[in-house]
């Protein structure tokens, strides 16, 4: 099952439409989407608007591939559960987000294993096809940096109780 997710805060019609049309052309019945506030209503794939965090995690866990906006919740959850993820950035000038931080995110994450980037909807179908040919890696899920964890822990430990 391919799990498509665009978060809950703003619409992302370009991604939802592109995946829906790809699924229609390919005759794929194994695609499930969380479309959030998108106006476009899929014709070929099943979808919900929203889901709670535990269901979201379970959907990622049972997916063969995740296709998502370049939100950190989607990216981190997919990597934690050892999934391949195809991400497409929301763009500010199209009214899909309030800043182009998702574009910055994908530029910096592109070289990581298990992440495939589609910069726009025209690239998305071929990137999904490509991602489906990639082997599911059995890498250990990425850990938070030990230095970050010890920095935060030591800071708390050495804070004065009296404030």
């Amino acid at each position, binding site marked *: 099952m391919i799990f498509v997710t665009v*978060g809950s805060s703003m619409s992302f019609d370009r991604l939802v439409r592109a995946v829906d049309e790809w699924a229609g052309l390919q005759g794929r019945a194994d695609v499930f989407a969380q479309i959030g506030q998108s106006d476009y209503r899929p014709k070929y794939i099943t979808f919900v608007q929203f889901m709670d965090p535990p269901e979201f995690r379970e959907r990622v866990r049972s997916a063969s591939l995740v296709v998502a906006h370049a*939100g950190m*919740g989607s990216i981190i959850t997919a990597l934690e559960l050892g999934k391949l993820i195809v991400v497409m950035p929301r763009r500010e000038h199209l009214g899909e987000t309030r800043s182009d931080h998702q574009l910055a995110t994908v530029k910096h994450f592109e070289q990581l294993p298990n992440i495939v980037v589609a910069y726009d909807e025209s690239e998305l179908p071929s990137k999904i096809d490509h991602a489906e040919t990639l082997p599911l890696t059995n890498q250990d899920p990425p850990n938070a940096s*030990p230095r970050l964890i010890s920095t935060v822990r030591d800071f708390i430990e050495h804070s004065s*109780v009296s404030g």
Partner: protein
Amino acid sequence: MPLAASRIRKKVLAVASGGGHWVQLLRLAPALVDFDVTFVGVSQEYRSEVVGHKFYSVTDATRWDKIALLTAAVQLAWITWKEKPNVVVSTGAAPGYLAIRLGRLFGARTIWLDSIANADCLSMAGKLVGRYADLWLTQWPHLERAEGPHYRGAVL
């Protein structure tokens, strides 16, 4: 440190808005295991992800919604007063900024970890919060500055 004091578990208020901010806060869990942690999210839906901890939900405010910001500030002020944390930690966004400001006001030490999503520049909240965060962190080495924010690693 006196023996008695070492037995008192530090109280931590851990605050994040939804989606990626919340997921990144949970990535810090290994740093928090020794402490008495109360979580604050922006929906009751997050409660089930921090079973065994106190949990509060506050209004999901953004910097474009002044009424929601005010509501969240009142809720966070009440939570901070009630919990009296030693340390407030946040991964953003607007509710986290408010929690850091209020934490400071109530005498807590404060930690801001700017979202890893902000790879080109610090978030707006992350910039504004700098002078109120005792530990002010970015997750990108190229965004580190001598006067802060500092880079000490990332959640990935």
